[in-house]
Structure formats: structure tokens, C-alpha cells
């Protein structure tokens, strides 16, 4: 079958759906139809009958606004999760064809895309996961590529260049970008804002670069073959005409996101000689596409046979990794850590606690991949792990360079790929550099653990640019993310247990830089942090009159304030709240009892107040930050900003007087 006809099937499905929906982006699906036809019909290793086959090639539509392209591709090649009805109902509630593609591996959608730059970074993360698993499990079991279709937008984003640099540096040879080089963006021709020598940017970052006519599917086919043969990551610059096939607007700005009307789609039918009615694909073209979808069946069956022939142990291990289950007994080390902490009861640098824990967990969980953007020394989450390098892809610690955004998005790619447990570590202030990716992790519900250290003015002299104040609030606002801020070694172990158990979404583990004195005593039994908040120290000597609520490093301050109040005969409880989101999931009675409704409530956190009113009520007190920090020694800063036991005590006392 002529690839051109197959590509036209994509074009018409796309334009019919966009016309029907009343809006959409025809430019990409029409312009890149030939490129993707070459990829899907000749190269992509996949099985529409088993979309989440572990050894499939991954395809990412990084220019997610061209979503109709992937829907058409999946539908035509036989993915049952994307039906013609879905396509007809493009951009309607309940359709699987959302405005931008949304993560659903069972339907062939490997990641959510739309925010530009993310998809290519995800693909790089997938290639990294593949490279690691290929070494771990052998090329018999893991040997696939990650392809991404990418537009000008993704490559203009800073994230794009971070990924180019890093993927080239790490020699992720199974990563292939197909650049839809249509010289057009939303504002108009790219020369409004861009004069880069794009191929040069790739070449000098050690990529294999080819330039082809993107409407010549055979040329793309050949380029793809060469790309796969080359040991470097590959970029194929495919020169295209945006909106190819719509005679009135192809090659113009209008094609990027034009509304289409009947007249235009009719004209396209005449122009491309496509006499078929809307949403109808002639049988031979359909058959050719289904055939293409079955192309990898022999590979698939051979792979299944190889897996079946694996020794039982290896098979179990593979199944475990595929299903994302952690190895038996992974908690043992955590529990031992917790017991030791309860015995030793000594203050320890917050971030070092996490580093110690990961050092142990890395031993128990061989698929755990750690890494940081150039803060290994300050965050120490490498320890015994070998680096993942260009020449050794079996390493388990990724030096991302000073590229937080790439790290975040690659972690998403790794988690979406599966088989690995990705962890990324940086300072809490730099979480903003990767915030666009955090939201996507949460939206996709991926298991990624982000470790954010240096979590407050407690970092001291580096000053306000490095002192988070609004970050806890901003992270807590993200739906479907657990934000965990442990107060001491015991809570640190508990929070890590929660994070790794939690499979429905990401966790942000927030650690202080400064030492955290022990606040927990008693036995190591229940994971108290698991309830989100709990009474750490109950009021004594009568009914509770005051409740001090705190997280992380401020729990110790709360305990000191309590001691003062107690010694003065004010029965005061301290509530530690390591995870608000989990606390919200508890029943009303538990929540009410813990936060002490009806008592005087004061919250303490070295951060802004936003969000705290929920727990401290209308006349509660809050001791924290009201603006940005300052440069000075940490203890002086806590005093300067009044985050002290005295102030907490005073906040309670003011209200005691009001009460009597």
C-alpha cells in the first residue's frame, strides 16, 4: 500500500474530527502524517492487542496539541481503546480523544502531553529506563526504542535544550526525535522569534542528525533505519508544510489551530483526491493499517517465548518489575532504621536522614534509580550507587547536571515506562524549576518520589533566594500529590515507607537541611505518619486547652512551647502533621479529635500561612513566615522571624486570655 494513502487516512480522520469538534489543531496531524505513517507502518514495535507489552517501542507525541494525529494512528493500527466513536466525539466529555493526549498505556497513550517540551523529556526518561533495564534484564527481554514527534515549540523551550544536552551526553542511543520542521508556530513564522541553527544544536550535543523531506515517507523510513543503527540518540529533521492537505491554509499560520468548515474539508478532498465521506476510511487503506498494526506480531511472540523460557526466578523478577511491585521484605530495612532511631534518639541533619534511608533501600530495591541536578554533595543520595554514564548504563545514580526541569520530566518518563522506581533530589526552592512536570506527574498518577531538601530559612546564610517560604503551600495545592514533611528520623522512615507504598501518584518528601532533634519515642509499631497527622504529645493535667500543630523542623519548637505551657498548668497537646493530604482522608471524628476542635489552636511552620486556616480555624494563631527570608545564620533567622517557642507560647496565651 502506498504510504501516502495511509497518511491521507490520518489527514481526513483528523480534519473531520476537528471540523466536527469545532476546534483543534489541524496543522500537526496533517503536516506530520507522512512522518508518522513511516514510523508506525515500518518501524514501531508494538502490539495493539497488548498495548502495554513491556518490550514495545514507546511513541510520544510531544507536540500534544496535534492530538488527533496519535488518535488516528492508534485507531487505524488497531488499538481498541480508541474507537471511531471516540474520534467522532473528539474533545467531548467522555471521549478518549481529549483535547490533548492523556496518559493511558492500555490505549497506547504513553504519557500526557500538551505543555510543550515535556514529551521529549519523557521520551528521554523512557530511553534511560530502557537502557538501564536492558543491562539489568538482558537484551532478550528489554530492547526497544523511544520515539518522539516534536515541534518547534518543544525545541524552543529551555527544557528542550536541557534534554538535548543530557540525552546526548548520556548517549541514550535508542532515543529518536522526529522533528516536524514546519517553520510555523502559534504567533506565525518561526523567524518572528527564532534564528537558531537547530540541527547544529543537536550535532554539537553528540546527536546523530539527518535532514529529510517530511512528506516523503520513504525517505523518513530510510532515515529511521539509519537512526536505529547509530549508537547516538538521533534527530531526524523532517521538513514539512504545516496543515498539508488543506489547500487554502497549508503552509500558513492559520493551519496551526484553524477552525475548519465544510468548504475547507471539501476542498481538501478534491485536492488530495479523497472522495470518501467524513470518518470513512476505504477498506484497502484500513486493511493496510491493520496489517501495519500486526507487523510486530512475530517479535511479540518470540519475546513471549523467550520470557516463558526464563528460569522461574528471573520470570518472577520480571513480573514483579512489570507490575511495579517492590521486592519482598523491602520494608525490613526501614523498620530496622526506625527502631534504631528510637533507641539512639539523636539529632541528625534532615536531608542526611533521607540519604541514609535511600542508601539502605537501594540495596533492597535493585530497580531504584536515584539522581540529582548537580547537588549530590549537598543531598547525598548517591552513596554506594554507581553513576549512570554514557559508557555504563547499568549505573543507578543519574547526574542530571544543572537541569532540574529535565530531571523532573525524565523521572516522569521513567515512571511511565515502568520497571524502575525513580527518585529525584534537589533543593526545595528549585522545585519551581520543574513545577510544570510535577503537575503532570500528579495528573498521570505516576509513582515518582521527589526529595526536596533545604526546606526553609533553616538553610541560613544562602539567603532568601534559597529559602522556601511559599513552596509547601504551592505543592500542597497540587491535586493528587502527597507532600510529606517529616519531623525526625522516625517520621523520615515512616514517610519513605508511605512514599514507596503509594502507587496512585507522586510524593514530595521535604527535608530540612539543619539537624532534626528526635521528637518521637515509644515503640516502632504503627506508622503514625500514615494517618497524615497524629497527636505526638497529648495534653497532661486536665482536659486539653491548647493544641499546637506543626510539621517538620517546627515540631521540635512546638514541643518546647508545650513544655512551657504545661509547666505553667496549661494542658497542651502537640500534633505533628507530616502529610496534610493523608490527614484529609481520615474520618471526621479522628480529624476533629486530633486537631482539637474547641481548643486554642496554633500552627507553626517556617513558611507562609496559606492553607493553615483549615486547621487552626477562624481565631487560631499561626507562627511562620509572612514574606521572604534573609541571609544570616539559621538560629539567628529563626529568632529574627520569630519562629520560636516563646512566640508560640505567646500565641497560645493571647488566646487563653481571650477565652477567660
Amino acid at each position: 500500500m502506498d504510504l501516502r494513502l495511509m497518511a491521507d487516512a490520518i489527514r481526513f480522520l483528523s480534519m473531520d474530527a476537528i471540523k466536527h469538534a469545532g476546534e483543534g489543531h489541524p496543522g500537526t496531524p496533517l503536516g506530520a502524517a507522512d512522518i508518522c505513517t513511516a514510523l508506525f507502518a515500518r518501524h514501531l514495535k508494538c502490539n495493539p492487542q497488548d498495548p502495554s507489552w513491556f518490550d514495545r517501542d514507546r511513541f510520544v507525541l510531544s507536540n500534544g496539541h496535534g492530538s488527533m494525529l496519535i488518535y488516528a494512528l492508534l485507531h487505524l493500527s488497531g488499538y481498541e481503546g480508541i474507537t471511531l466513536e471516540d474520534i467522532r466525539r473528539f474533545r467531548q466529555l467522555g471521549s478518549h480523544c481529549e483535547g490533548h493526549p492523556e496518559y493511558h498505556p492500555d490505549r497506547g497513550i504513553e504519557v500526557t502531553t500538551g505543555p510543550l517540551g515535556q514529551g521529549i523529556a519523557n521520551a528521554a526518561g523512557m530511553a534511560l529506563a530502557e537502557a538501564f533495564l536492558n543491562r539489568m534484564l538482558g537484551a532478550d527481554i528489554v530492547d526497544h526504542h523511544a520515539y518522539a514527534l516534536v515541534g518547534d515549540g518543544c525545541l524552543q523551550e529551555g527544557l528542550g535544550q536541557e534534554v538535548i544536552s543530557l540525552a546526548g551526553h548520556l548517549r541514550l542511543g535508542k532515543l529518536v526525535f522526529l522533528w516536524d520542521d514546519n517553520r510555523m508556530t502559534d504567533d506565525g513564522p518561526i523567524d518572528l522569534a527564532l534564528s537558531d541553527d537547530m540541527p547544529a544544536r543537536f550535532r554539537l550535543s553528540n546527536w546523530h542528525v539527518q535532514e529529510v523531506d517530511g512528506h516523503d515517507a520513504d525517505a523518513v523510513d530510510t532515515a529511521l533505519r539509519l537512526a536505529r543503527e547509530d549508537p547516538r540518540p538521533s534527530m531526524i529533521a523532517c521538513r514539512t508544510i504545516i496543515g498539508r492537505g488543506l489547500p487554502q491554509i497549508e503552509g500558513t499560520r492559520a493551519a496551526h489551530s484553524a477552525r475548519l468548515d465544510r468548504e475547507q474539508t471539501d476542498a481538501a478532498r478534491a485536492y488530495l483526491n479523497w472522495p470518501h465521506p467524513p470518518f470513512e476510511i476505504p477498506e484497502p487503506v484500513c486493511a493496510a493499517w491493520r496489517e501495519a498494526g500486526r507487523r510486530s506480531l512475530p517479535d511479540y511472540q518470540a519475546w513471549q517465548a523467550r520470557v516463558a523460557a526464563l528460569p522461574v526466578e528471573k520470570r518472577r523478577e520480571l513480573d514483579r518489575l512489570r507490575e511495579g511491585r517492590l521486592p519482598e521484605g523491602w520494608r525490613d530495612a526501614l523498620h530496622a532504621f526506625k527502631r534504631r532511631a528510637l533507641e539512639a534518639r539523636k539529632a541528625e541533619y534532615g536531608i542526611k536522614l533521607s540519604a541514609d534511608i535511600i542508601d539502605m533501600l537501594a540495596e533492597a530495591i535493585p530497580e531504584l534509580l536515584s539522581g540529582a541536578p548537580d547537588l549530590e554533595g549537598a543531598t547525598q543520595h548517591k552513596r554506594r550507587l554507581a553513576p549512570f554514564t554514557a559508557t555504563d548504563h547499568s549505573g543507578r545514580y543519574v547526574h542530571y547536571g544543572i537541569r532540574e526541569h529535565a530531571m523532573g520530566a525524565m523521572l516522569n518518563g521513567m515512571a511511565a515506562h515502568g520497571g524502575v522506581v525513580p527518585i529525584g533530589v534537589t533543593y526545595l526552592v528549585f522545585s519551581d524549576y520543574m513545577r510544570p512536570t510535577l503537575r503532570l506527574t500528579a495528573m498521570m498518577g505516576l509513582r515518582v518520589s521527589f526529595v526536596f531538601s533545604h526546606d526553609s530559612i533553616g538553610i541560613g546564610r544562602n539567603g532568601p533566594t534559597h529559602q522556601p517560604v511559599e513552596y509547601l503551600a504551592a505543592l500542597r495545592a497540587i491535586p493528587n500529590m502527597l507532600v510529606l514533611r517529616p519531623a525526625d528520623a522516625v517520621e523520615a522512615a515512616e514517610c519513605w515507607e508511605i512514599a514507596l507504598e503509594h502507587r496512585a501518584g507522586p510524593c514530595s518528601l521535604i527535608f530540612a537541611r539543619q539537624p532534626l532533634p528526635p521528637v518521637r519515642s515509644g515503640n516502632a509499631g504503627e506508622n503514625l505518619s500514615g494517618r497524615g497527622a497524629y497527636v505526638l504529645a497529648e495534653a497532661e493535667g486536665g482536659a486539653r486547652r491548647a493544641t499546637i500543630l506543626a510539621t517538620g523542623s517546627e515540631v521540635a519548637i512546638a514541643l518546647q512551647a508545650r513544655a512551657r505551657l504545661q509547666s505553667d498548668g496549661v494542658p497542651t497537646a502537640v500534633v505533628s502533621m507530616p502529610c496534610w493530604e493523608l490527614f484529609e482522608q481520615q474520618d471526621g471524628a479522628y480529624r476533629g479529635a486530633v486537631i482539637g476542635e474547641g481548643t486554642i489552636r496554633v500552627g507553626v511552620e517556617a513558611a507562609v500561612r496559606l492553607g493553615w486556616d483549615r486547621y487552626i480555624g477562624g481565631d487560631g494563631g499561626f507562627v511562620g513566615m509572612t514574606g521572604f527570608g534573609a541571609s544570616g545564620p539559621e538560629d539567628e533567622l529563626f529568632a529574627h522571624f520569630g519562629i520560636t517557642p516563646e512566640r508560640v507560647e505567646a500565641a497560645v496565651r493571647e488566646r487563653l486570655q481571650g477565652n477567660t
Partner: protein
Amino acid sequence: MASLAERRAGGSRLPEQTEILARPVPGERRMADAVRALAIDAVQAAQSGHPGMPLGMADAATALWTRFLKFDAADPRWPDRDRFVLSAGHGSLLLYALLHLTGHDGMEIDALQRFRRLHSPAAGHPEYGEHPAIEATTGPLGQGIGAAVGMALAERMLAARFGKSLVDHRTWVVASDGDLMEGISHEAASLAGHLRLDKLAVLYDDNGISVDGEISRVCSEDVLRRFAAYGWAVKQVDGHDPTAVAAALSSALRSRKPSLIACRTSLGCPAAGDSVGQGVRMGPAEVLRAKQALGWPHPPFTVPETLAERWRQAGSRAAGTRRAWLRRIARHPQRAEFERVTAGRLPESWHEAVAVLKSRIAETRPRLASRQSSHETLTALVPAMPELVGGSADLTSSTLTFVKGMGAVAPGSYGGRYVHYGIREHAMAGALNGMALHGGLIPYAGTFVAFSDYMRPALRLAAQMRLRVIYVLTHDSIGLGEDGSTHQPIEHLAGLRAIPGVHLFRPADALETAECWELAIRRADGPSLIVLSRQPLPALRSDCGENRCARGGYVLAEAEGPRQATLIATGSEVALAIAARERLAAEGIAAAVVSLPCWELFALQDEAYRMRVLGGVMRIGIEAACDFGWERWLGEGGCFIGMSGYGASAPCEELYRHFGLTAEAVALAVRRRMH
């Protein structure tokens, strides 16, 4: 061209420390040593800090500051000075030492002695506002380059407006490897190359080391060639050879492109050992050894008088140039206007066209998307305020930020007032900071609310520096419809409200949009975010006298009869509250509607006013976003109607129904609570 690694291995390898130290010591080296010694002493006194960058770049910075940088220590705010941005803010001592040595008031030796202590202007990282010669707050890597591109662009735009005799200066940046790895620097460099900002030069500390160790572990590309691909002129020099650095700086003066000068340096020179530079403390023994190696016998914090005098002279090198400029401006026909815009004063009559617009809106009560209303307000403002410059990150036709007649800035042509930033939100926000820091312009720029996350690090700095920048953020909720959840903000309003010093405005109709724009324009001490809808909003107001948004929140519709409930909403949801109020009224329940376009301004009102507005009755909050932070206004018995998770892809009205954001739902919530 050889790769970096090859160059390192081959002939043009990095200079060795011993080799550098063995060179004859010219006067310039001694001047640089003064910088080094001060840096060493200050880090030693603070027992913290990063000596590496100041030590490594001392020679290059000395060449720049003593022979090229146009400044006069007597007036660090002289408008036509060159701008110097230390993008690698962790090397703050380089800047402090230079300011001290060149004789800037307010950076006396005790400031350095109190490096990194509370109330010292010599903070851990350079803080804008701590000293008048600190041009920008830096520290988060890449941001300085982003700001510098904005400064260089501002210079070109102002030169186009006021001519070379008033505006003719350069922007110099000292950056580190880390700066050049961050995405924002890629975006900014690509933009600067595209716009041919030829008066921008970046000196980069090419030391091959970052916090984690050798750069080659994390980066193997050729930075010079990458910048060449962005359209920059690139050079590599021995960063310890003042003559070579000076030659490169001279060629930057002549270049028709922005310049990148890689200064190959030996990190931490002359402090022995590789890792000394990056935040690693030196002990007294190392300090001694370092000073001996330099041949610097003087006590701590002491610079011999002859050397000090040479430095002070460098500080007044451009005094004559400045006096000549003062003479020029004194008789310049545009003097008053120039002084007005550099002082950030608004034009006398800036407000008239908006007033006309407001009365027209009050009369015609148009139903408009607030992004459209914003466009109309801009159409009134832009002609009245020549200093107002706009732009967008490739979403001009969606954010409606372009006003006819503005003209776009293009390579080599800077008379326009609109910047196509490309799909580079982060660089855009960085450039806005730079323009505001430069002065003479009031910059605004647009993208979608959802993509505000991409610029958040720069936005935070705008808040920290209290800059007058205006972000036009459109497509503010599920109301954008079909584009789906990736584009629908949920947590963004809360996330932005959390940033201290930000004013977030979410107007409810055309009139409020005009009012919010007025407030944003007036606000001189911090960033304003104007958050706007894609979908049309009905007009809710017919009064246009007092700017009611100025108090942050107000009673838009009082209850008929004693108030039983207060419906508090922002933006597109205010209309929904009004509809709910009508429903409730029909059932005999008296509810008031409060519009709360700006939380931050409302929080500044006195308690009595806030109580009056919010009412001591049941309160219902309505916002098509997550509830985070709303308890503050709702109190404990309150109830919030909004989003609890991510959105979906469908037409706007359907989504509002699907997620239960309807007048019925609001009315029901009130009724439930009454019983």
C-alpha cells in the same frame, strides 16, 4: 572545531594553577589579587560562602571593571551606566569586593566583614535593594542571564525612543557553567541571538567544575558552538590573562551579535585543591597558603593604599562620561519624558482613556471574555503610556496582548513595543524582570495560566525584588474547555497567591478587568498577575466611579433583607454567584454576593471592612479551582464549591455542569446548610 574535552586534553588546555601563579605579576594581577584576598577573608569570616567564582574570575572581572564597564561609583543609579549582572550569584563576593574596591558608598569593609550576616548588604547571594549598585537578585541559576537579556533589550528599545545621546550602554554578565546548563539560559540566549542584542556580553567562568565535580560528568557539549548556533559571537580566552580578556572584551564592543566569552579559569585559583571553590570552607592553613601563593602578605581585609587608590580611580573612570551625559540631558528636548519614565512615574493623563472606556462599559454592559476586556483596556492604555511594552510567549492571538500600532521588535529594529518571545515562557519572565530592573519601561506579557509554572522561578524573583511587571495570564480555568486538563489550571491560583508580594487579580467582568489593569499599572512595588477567562462573561456592574477592586473585595450585590449567606467568588464564578443569589432570593433566602478579585489587597483592609464584606453569616466560596487557602475567607463553617481534582476535555458549559459548578449547586449548598 575541537570538542571541549579535546581542547582540554590538547594544546589549549586549562591553565594550571601553578603555571598561572608563576607568571610575572603585572599591576592588574595585583588588583585582581585584592578581589581574591577580600573574597578569601570574607568567606573565612563568615565560615561559609563560595570563594571559587570570585577567585577564578577575579582577573577577568578586573579587566572588565577597570577598562570597560561604564559606571561611576558616585552615582550607581546613573541611567546610562552599563549594567553588570552576576548571574552566578553564589559568587556574590566577586561583586561585593568590586563594589567595595571601586569606592561605592554602602559597601564599606565592614559589610564584607559581616558577609552573610543579618542586615549586611553583603548577603549570601546578591540581593537587589541591598545596595544601589546591585542590579539584580541572583542565585537561582540561569536567572541572571534571563534578566540581562531583558536589560539589553530595554536598552535597545529605549535607545530607539530617546536616541543614542541618552541611552547607549551595555549589559555585561558573569555566568557559570551552571547558568549555561539551565533551560532558561538556553531560551534567553536563543532569544538574544535572534534579536541580535549586540550590546550584551556574557563572560563565562569556563572552569569545568560545578558542585558535583567535573562538568564533563554531566555535560559534553561544546558550549561555544551551541551559542554560535544561537547566533552569538563566541570567543575563548585564558581567563587569567588580562590582555587576552581585554582583547576579547574589545571585540565584543565591535560585534554585531551578542558575545559569549569563555574565560578558561582554574577554579579557586590560587586556593590549592580542586574542590575548594564550590562552597567548601577553607581552613586558616589554606587561607595562609593561598595568600602565600599569591604573594599577598597583608592582614585580613586590608588592601595596601596604592592598590586601593588604583581601584578607587577605576571607580570614577567614567565620571567624565557621566558629567557629559548630564550636560546632554540637561538640554535634551525629551529630558522631562526621559526622567519621568526612568523614575517610573506614570504620565499625567494615562488614566483618561481608561476612564472613558470604563464609562462606556458601564453603559453598554458588554458580554466579553475577560481576555477580550483586557485587550480593550490595553487598547486604551497603550497609546497613553509610551513606556508600556508588551509581549507573549507565542500565544499572542489567544492572550490578546497585542494592540494595533504597537509594532513588534525585530532583529536590528527596536522601535516596536511588542516582543514575540517565542515558546520561551521562562526567558520571557526573566526578560520582564530585566526590563523592570533596567527602568524606563513597564513590561507586561502574556501566556496561559497553566504555563505560569514554566516561569515561576523568575516570577518569584520579581516578587522578591518588588518589580513592576505585569503578567497577563489567560485561559484561567476549566472554562477554557476542550483543550483539556493539561491546560486547565486548578492549583495555579493557590500556588501564585502563596508567593509573598504578588498581587493576583481575577476580574469578573469588563469593568473589573479595567479596574484591575488600573491597579496593576499603579502598583510600583511588586508584580501583578491579571488572570483572565477565555469564555465570555456577562457584565455585572454599571457603576464606574470608584475603583471598587482597589479594596480587593467588595459587596457586589447586597442581600435583600437581613443577610443570611454570603456568596464569595472571583472571576468567571461571580456571575454564577449572582445567578445563585437570584435563585435563593426566589426561595426567600437573602444572600449577598462578594466579588474578591484580589485577595492580597483585601487582606490589607482593616478588620472591620473585611467583616462587613464577608458578613458574620454562612459563607460559600466559589472558584473554578482547588479550595486551597479559601478557609481564610470562609471560616470554619464555610463551604467551598470548586474543583477537587483535574479537569477534562469538553465544551465549557458542559464542564461547569460536570464538575458541579452551577448556580443550582450553590443554592443547594446554602439550603443544606440552613437546615
